[in-house]
């Protein structure tokens, strides 16, 4: 399965991946509106410490703790092996957030549900990968 | 011992013969009747030792990496140019611009050296080039020095009346250290250097370098150490840091 991998050596910590993610998952798909009117939450985030930085998001694990932890069955694999959250079934118990060893599941405070990377199911290349100006995110099978 | 007679041989052929001997595994090579041939032992890597009878020409041991060279007589200019490692021992005096850009190895000279010796010597980690001059040195000794050790003894000068070192000592020096036997006149030094007494560590180092030197020339180290040395050091790693504005 293809996953998004960060390349620490060339991540310059700009955060364009976050902007791209937030916009992609907004209703308007417009950057300014998404940020100013929708209060979106990016599903990936850039870790920065001194000169180190990299963008992380859901690893779409083969044996995900989040699926095991979810009390309503809202978190599950899709047919391609992606781990997705069905937000309609999410009851905001935050079990998945606590279970995730990578800390990549976030609270969507506006809608009060868990949210995380869905690999932009409808796109050929996830938005974050396409947005990275320095090829520091790679979407590939390993 | 492989002996190569250099009489009437042009440097190109002579050096080819030397390189061939080294390639064939010769560990001790003797060059006889050397008369000013350039580039002897340039770029040679390994642990061969080369003994030279006669006066070798310019750029002796340039880019050399490992071998030991013993010159039985005087030598000319630009010895040990950008030399990497190895050892050069000269039983006489030598000319200008010795050890330019030298980055490792040792050069021991029994008597005087000319102008601009030890220019831009540099050291990196375990590689510390050392030049020890038994006689006097000309101007610009250690100019632009970026690392390594220069030791000037003044004990075997050809002309007793000349000062031990010339003018502009250590101009632009920004690394390494010099030990000079006796007093140094700060007015003859570059603006970038400071003078000091040797501390315990300096003395230890100096003794170690001199022991090796004395062995090469059969000299008495105690005699040499009788006189106080002056330490010449760079005041800054960045002598020209405030030179610019933008």
């Amino acid at each position, binding site marked *: 399965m293809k996953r998004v991998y960060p390349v620490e050596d060339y991540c310059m910590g700009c*955060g*364009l991946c976050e902007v791209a993610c937030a916009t992609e998952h907004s209703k308007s798909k417009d950057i300014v509106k998404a940020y100013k009117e929708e209060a979106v939450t990016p599903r990936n985030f850039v870790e920065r410490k001194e*000169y180190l930085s990299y963008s992380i998001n859901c690893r779409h694990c083969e044996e995900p703790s989040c699926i095991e932890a979810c009390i309503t069955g809202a978190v599950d694999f899709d047919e391609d092996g992606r781990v997705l959250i069905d937000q309609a079934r999410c009851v905001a118990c935050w079990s998945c957030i606590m279970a995730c060893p990578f800390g990549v599941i976030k609270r969507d405070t506006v809608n009060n549900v868990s949210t995380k990377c869905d690999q932009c199911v409808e796109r050929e290349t996830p938005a974050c990968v396409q947005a990275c100006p320095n090829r520091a995110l790679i979407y590939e099978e390993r | 011992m492989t002996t190569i007679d250099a009489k009437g041989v042009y440097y190109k052929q002579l050096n080819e013969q030397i390189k061939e001997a080294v390639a064939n595994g010769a560990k001790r090579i003797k060059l006889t009747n050397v008369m000013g041939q350039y580039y002897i032992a340039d*770029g040679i890597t390994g642990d061969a030792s080369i003994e030279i009878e006669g006066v070798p020409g310019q750029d002796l041991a340039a880019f050399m990496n490992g071998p030991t060279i013993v010159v039985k007589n005087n030598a000319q200019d630009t010895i040990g140019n950008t030399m*990497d490692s190895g050892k050069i021992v000269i039983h006489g005096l030598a000319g200008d611009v010795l050890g330019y850009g030298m*980055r490792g190895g040792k050069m021991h000279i029994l008597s005087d050296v000319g102008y601009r010796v030890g220019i831009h010597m540099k050291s990196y980690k375990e590689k510390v080039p050392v030049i020890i001059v038994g006689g006097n040195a000309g101007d610009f000794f250690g100019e632009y020095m970026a690392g390594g050790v220069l030791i000037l003894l003044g004990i075997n000068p050809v002309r007793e009346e000349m000062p031990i070192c010339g003018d502009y000592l250590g101009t632009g020096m*920004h690394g390494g250290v010099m030990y000079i036997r006796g007093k140094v006149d700060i007015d003859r030094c570059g603006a970038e250097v400071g003078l000091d007494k040797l501390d315990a560590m300096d003395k230890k180092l100096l003794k170690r370098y001199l022991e090796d030197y004395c062995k090469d020339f059969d000299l008495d180290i105690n005699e040499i150490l009788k006189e106080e040395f002056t330490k010449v050091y760079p005041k800054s790693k960045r002598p020209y840091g405030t030179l*610019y504005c933008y």
Partner: protein
Amino acid sequence: MLYKSFVDSFSDYIIDRNEDKCILCRICERQCSYEAHGFDKKNSVMTKQDHKCICCRRCEAMCPTGAISIRENPSQFKRNSNWTASHRKNIYKQAETGGILLVGMGNPTGKQPTYFDRMLLDASQVTNPSIDPLREPMELRTYLGRKPDRLEFEEKDGRVSLKTKLTPQLKLEYPIMFSAMSYGAINYNVHVGMARASQKMGIYYNTGEGGLHKSLYPYGANTIVQVASGRFGVNAEYLNVAGGIEIKIGQGAKPGIGGHLPGEKVNEEVSRTRMIPAGTDALSPAPHHDIYSIEDLRQLIYALKEATDYKNPVSVKIAAVHNSAAIASGIVRAGADILTLDGYRGGTGAAPLVTRNNVGIPIELALASVDQRLRDEGIRNHVSIVVGGGIRSSADVVKAIALGADAVYIGTATLVSVGCTLCRMCFTGKCPWGIATNDQSLSKRINPDIAEEKLSNLIRGWGLEIKEIIGGMGLNALESMRGSRHRLRGVGLSESELDILGIAPAGK
């Protein structure tokens, strides 16, 4: 003036941020290595300090909503054509510091003519046909190195073979090389990009005087290693791993002076490669201290040949100065295989402004006079001429070749292709585009994979254009263009300039 120097009180640029578009993502703030952008957490607004802006336009490029534009400060000193604003500001700076004005890159003033722009190329019509480079063979291969005046052959077993023993040559598939920019002045990632692109395109890049990082030894066959007065990173291995060696005497941007790589740029890796301790200034003296005369140059040329068993051609690089022609003749006779001329408009990481703007001559004139002088002396074959310092496009390449160059070096164009916007602050080590910096967080901005692609594309693109141009003149091999001044015409040049360039005025 509050907390600012006098000169900083007059901002050169103004950062315009459109608040309607700003989404407070703070990318501009993170990308600005000069801290011109900031964020006021309490009030949740972006802030800016115009006087810190160097107009690199990194923030503008990175802003996802296009909210930022950088513009020149319209506020002007009282107009004075003689005492320009820059004259006044330079004096303010020097009055405050007592230092030498330092600048990066080539001269931006444009006060001297760019002769390339005043020369036009020929094309074939009817009597000799132009050649379609897309369908027909079109050859750019170039060999750099000393050539004999004539060849001798021998016949053995009914076959003719070459008897003359040729000296080593550099084989180029395009007449373009990446010029000397040292590791240290620019960072490792850019060097990796140049090394890989050179190998891929069959050309060479020049290490500059900062040594060669060990990890780049595998690209040695496409590398020209430089030996400059500082002798940084020079040893037998370095010399032997390379395809060619260049003795740097001078540089077009700063003829006659040495170089100082500031200690800030000397990090661990740079220090290892240059073989000097980290944090020290890397000082290159103005002269090579083993070259005070032409015979000394000969001595160094042959020392390098001896150290490499005569298998590498040796180039000597000089800045284009008033009597380049005579100097060039001496260099050729001293045994150089390649002569590199670097012109007045050449770039640099750092040079005193007074030198950059006032010393040297344009490359076109130097090239023309050197090529002619060597021809007059009958020794043009003995050397290849490579020119740099102001090559901006494939047209410049063709014009340089028509004037007599064998190949060109591109430096500024190389950097521009990987993102440089010519903000000319290379010497601060804070290059926002991640090029002229060794800062770990900034140099990451160059991904060598992308750099390699861009550099290769540039060479390929220029190569295609060169083929179009020479094909249009009915030539299918670059050697027929080389020195063919007959295919150049001058526009708006004086008779003496035309005479030096050896070209006719357009229309004649």
